[in-house]
């Protein structure tokens, strides 16, 4: 089973739009996906990521723009003529067919000889480690196994493109981690070009070669997991990537890409992400991991502990500053609820954005 035989270089979305009445679900999406790439479409619900996937699959028509594989325009084709594989959120296995028949479905529709269907379906089942389950009905399998069948069904046809629509969201937390590794392993083995829709940043970070962050039907940022994790270009992307702490203040000075803001009578520094000048309203964003209680360095802010949780190796809690900003922090020790603590913000990892509407 090799997908290397499919000759295409790239999938290209050219200003793809989709409107439902007056509501624009997708707004002029431009994206080029190279062969063999694993791309995650990431965003909160309603951001248009599933709409984008359904447009690519052909289950939903576009209302503007075009979708191309190399130079061949495909957005006018029916879904059955596109030859993609798709994994659905609720698996969508055919309940009346055995596992083997489910996996062989796409091959049967392509009119392949029975013996070849059987051989290839068995090989796909082996790939997802479901040998020996071939004659069961989907209803007899667990959720994780059903999702493996769905993946086998999608890849057995050796599609140029595999589409995955939140395939792990119906699984419990432990199984989700397992299947995540499984999807990565299958991708490494086959090199199938994959578009993966998710609202879970951890999934996107761990699986994807490239992440596309969508918001309100538009692309906000495209980058490698590392780029998105370290340097989100916008505050909303940063929030989505785990920058839960936001400290609002006024810019004091900017030098060498480092911005210093003043808030509650203190000065805090972080990497400047926007063009800032002294006096601007700005937001300093930091992950909970980068706000530490019990450190003695500078770049700190005072707050009163509101909650604290034991997490084994550390404690994670929330605290409120004098002006009412809530901060998530972690620290090595348990602190009393209601006690006043000093929280140090990692200046190298904190990001300073212009305050929305003020820039």
């Amino acid at each position, binding site marked *: 089973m090799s997908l290397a035989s499919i000759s295409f270089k790239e999938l290209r979305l050219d200003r793809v739009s989709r409107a439902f009445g007056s509501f624009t679900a997708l707004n002029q999406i431009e994206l080029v996906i190279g062969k063999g790439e694993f791309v995650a479409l990431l965003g909160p619900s309603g951001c248009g990521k599933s709409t984008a996937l359904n447009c690519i699959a052909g289950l939903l028509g576009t209302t503007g723009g075009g979708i191309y594989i190399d130079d061949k325009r495909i957005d006018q084709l029916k879904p059955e003529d596109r030859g993609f594989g*798709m994994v659905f959120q*609720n*698996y969508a296995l055919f309940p*009346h067919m055995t596992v083997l028949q489910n996996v062989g479905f796409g091959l049967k*529709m392509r009119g392949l000889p029975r013996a070849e269907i059987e051989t290839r379906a068995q090989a796909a089942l082996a790939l997802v480690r479901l040998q020996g389950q071939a004659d069961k009905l989907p*209803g007899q399998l667990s959720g994780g196994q059903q999702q493996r069948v769905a993946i086998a069904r999608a890849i057995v046809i050796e599609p140029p493109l595999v589409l995955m629509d939140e395939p792990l969201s119906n699984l419990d937390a432990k199984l989700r981690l397992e299947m995540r590794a499984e999807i990565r392993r299958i991708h490494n083995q086959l090199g199938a070009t994959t578009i993966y829709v998710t609202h879970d940043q951890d999934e996107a970070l761990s699986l994807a070669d490239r992440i596309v962050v969508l918001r309100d039907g538009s692309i906000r940022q495209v980058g490698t997991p590392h780029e998105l994790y370290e340097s989100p270009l916008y505050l909303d992307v940063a929030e989505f990537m785990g920058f839960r702490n936001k400290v609002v203040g006024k810019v004091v000075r900017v030098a060498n890409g480092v911005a210093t803001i003043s808030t509650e009578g203190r000065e805090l520094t972080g990497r400047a992400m926007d063009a800032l000048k002294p006096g601007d309203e700005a937001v300093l964003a930091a992950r909970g991991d980068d706000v530490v209680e019990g450190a003695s360095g500078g770049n700190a802010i005072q707050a009163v502990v509101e909650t604290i949780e034991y997490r084994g190796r550390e404690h994670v809690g929330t605290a409120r500053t004098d002006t009412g900003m809530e901060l998530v922090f972690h620290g090595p020790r348990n602190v009393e609820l209601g006690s006043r603590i000093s929280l140090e913000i990692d200046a190298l990892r904190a990001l300073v954005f212009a305050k929305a509407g003020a820039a």
Partner: protein
Amino acid sequence: MTVQAIHTRQREDVAPDRPSLRQRLANQGIDGVTLLILPAFLFVLGVFVYPFLYGLVLSFNPIEGDAFANYRQFFSDPYLYNTIGATLWLAVPVTLISGVLAVPIALRVRLLQRQRLLTTLLVLPITLGTVLVAEGLLNYLGAQGWFNRTLITIGLIDSPLRLTNNYWGVFVSLIITVFPFTFLLTLSYISGIDPALERAAATHGANSWQRFRYVMLPLLIPGLVVAACLTFVQAFSVFPSAVLLGAPSGPTRVISIAAAQAAFEEYNASKASAIAMIMAAVQLVVVAGLLGVRSMFYRGSTAGGKG
């Protein structure tokens, strides 16, 4: 040591006796609420089971001859036994055609926004009742009715088609009265199939016919068979339209007419009961056959996975 002693004593005091009767019944799913089926049970007993058994016994007590005289008479008189064929000749095509019409229409209606309007229109014939439909068709399809006059006016035919007082009149009115049942049942079965299954089939290369053939139809068959059973039983007991629109002594002399004649013209309740029993037996055979076919198909959930 002391603690252990106390434990032992307690275990002796409170013998692990069997749970109470009430508890054991509850474990079997029987509790106070179960009593609510009593009225329905009595109703079925009094209005269905008793008359049925009464009729069965009555049919073996003919006015003259031995116990099987009525049955022997029925199966030796072509005027009587031919009614089975005549009734099947109406009921089977009507069932098949309703089913064949209902599936594609339901497949389409499932996707409509204004399902309710169409459903209401289709349910109307049920509420009108068979007699009204029959009377209406008598006028509409008659020699001077709109249907024939329209065809003559546009020049398709020269003389009126004979559509009443024969097989076709009964056929048409039966279709009108049973189709809504078939359709509504089919629609509910089709709506119960996870739409993601069709999408999955499409993305994996199935065209619309293949999607129907390999995904929708196999999942629909159990439902369609039940719909066919109900439609058939309804069509098989046709009476008013066979009398009003058909040729009650000719090709549409259905089995219920034979029973009615025995009961109200010959005043032979025993013979009428025998005919009714034969009618029930034929229906039972057909329904059992259909359910047998159904058991050969997948009958489980029509969802595509955990939802």
